[in-house]
C-alpha cells in the first residue's frame, strides 16, 4: 500500500506539475489549500488590529462616529457592497465551471470578476474624491514633520499652532481612509491575480484547478472584510 504513494518523483502527469517533494497530487493540492487558509488567518488578524482601533474610537466617541459616518457616501458604499458580493458569486461560479472542465466559461467568469473589482475600485476612487472634496481628508493641516512641543504641552501647543480642531471626527476619517485603503490594496492585488488567471485559462490546461480555487479563496476573503467594513463605517449613523 505504501509503495503506491512512494512512486518515482519524476513522473509528472497531466497539466499540473507535481513538485518533487510531494508524493501525490492530492497531497500537494491539500497543502496549497491549507496554506492559503493559514495565510488568510494571518490576514484576519492583520485587519483585526485595525478593527480594534475602530472599536476603540467607537467605544470612546460613539456620537462622533455616528455623526461622521453620515458624511460618507452611503449610496456609493451600498453599490460597492453589491458589486463585491456579486463578484464573489461569479468567482464561486467560475471555480465551479473550472471544476467541470469548462475552462472557457471559467475564464470568462474570472475576467468578469476582475472587471467588477475594477468597478469597485473606480467607485471607491470617486467616493474618495467626493469625501476629500467635502474637506474631510484629515491631517493635512497638521505638520508633516513631527515637532517637539516646547513648554506648552499637548493642549497648549495645539491652540498656539492653530492646528486641526480636535473634534475627533478626524479619528473616524483616518480610520475610514486607512481601512478602506488597505482593503482597496487587497482588491487591486486580487484584480491582477484574477486577470492573469483568466488569461491563462483560455487554454484548456493553462493553469491548475487548485490555483483557481485558492485565488477564489483570496477573493472571497477580500469580500469578507468589506462585509464588515461596510456597516461599521457607512451605516453607523444613517438614521431616520
Amino acid at each position, binding site marked *: 500500500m505504501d509503495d503506491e504513494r512512494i512512486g518515482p518523483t519524476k513522473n509528472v502527469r497531466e497539466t499540473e506539475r507535481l513538485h518533487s517533494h510531494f508524493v501525490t497530487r492530492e497531497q500537494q493540492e491539500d497543502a496549497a489549500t491549507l496554506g492559503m487558509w493559514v495565510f488568510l*488567518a494571518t490576514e*484576519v488578524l492583520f485587519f483585526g488590529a485595525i478593527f480594534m482601533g475602530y472599536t476603540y474610537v467607537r467605544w470612546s466617541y460613539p456620537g462622533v462616529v455616528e455623526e461622521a459616518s453620515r458624511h460618507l457616501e452611503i449610496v456609493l458604499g451600498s453599490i460597492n457592497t453589491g458589486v463585491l*458580493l456579486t463578484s464573489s458569486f461569479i468567482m464561486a461560479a467560475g471555480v465551479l465551471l473550472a471544476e467541470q472542465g469548462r475552462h472557457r466559461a471559467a475564464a470568462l467568469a474570472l475576467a468578469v470578476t476582475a472587471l467588477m473589482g475594477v468597478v469597485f475600485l473606480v467607485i471607491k476612487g470617486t467616493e474618495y474624491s467626493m469625501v476629500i472634496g467635502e474637506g474631510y481628508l484629515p491631517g493635512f493641516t497638521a505638520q508633516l514633520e513631527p515637532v517637539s512641543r516646547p513648554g506648552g504641552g499637548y493642549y497648549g501647543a495645539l491652540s498656539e499652532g492653530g492646528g486641526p480642531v480636535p473634534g475627533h471626527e478626524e479619528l473616524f476619517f483616518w480610520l475610514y481612509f486607512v481601512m478602506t485603503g488597505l482593503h482597496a490594496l487587497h482588491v487591486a492585488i486580487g484584480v491582477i491575480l484574477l486577470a492573469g488567471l483568466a488569461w491563462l485559462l483560455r487554454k484548456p490546461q493553462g493553469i491548475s484547478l487548485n490555483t483557481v480555487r485558492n485565488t477564489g479563496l483570496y477573493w472571497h476573503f477580500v469580500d469578507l472584510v468589506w462585509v464588515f467594513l461596510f*456597516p461599521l463605517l457607512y451605516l453607523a449613523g444613517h438614521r431616520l
Partner: protein
Amino acid sequence: MHPSSPTLRTFAKVWGALMVLLLLTILASQFDLGRLSLAVALAIAVTKAALIVMFFMHVRYGSREVLVFAGAAYLWLAILLVGVLYDYASRNWLPGR
C-alpha cells in the same frame, strides 16, 4: 473528492440571500434602534460572512483542518477585542484607576 459538492444553483441562492441581507442592513441602519443598531448590523454582517465562508469558500464541503484554521483566526480576533474592551469597560468601575 468531497462528500457533497456545491452546485451553481446553491451559489445563486446564496447570492440572493446576500443581496437580501444587504438591503436589510441598509434598511435597518436607517432606524435608530439605540444600542440595538450596532448589534443588528453586526448580526447581519456575521450572517453574510458565514454564508460566504461556508458556501463560496467551500468550508462546508471541505476538510476539518480548514474549519479549524478559519475558526481559529476569528477566535483569536475575539480574544483581542474582548481583552482590550474589558480594560476600557472596567476603567470606570470604581474611582481611581
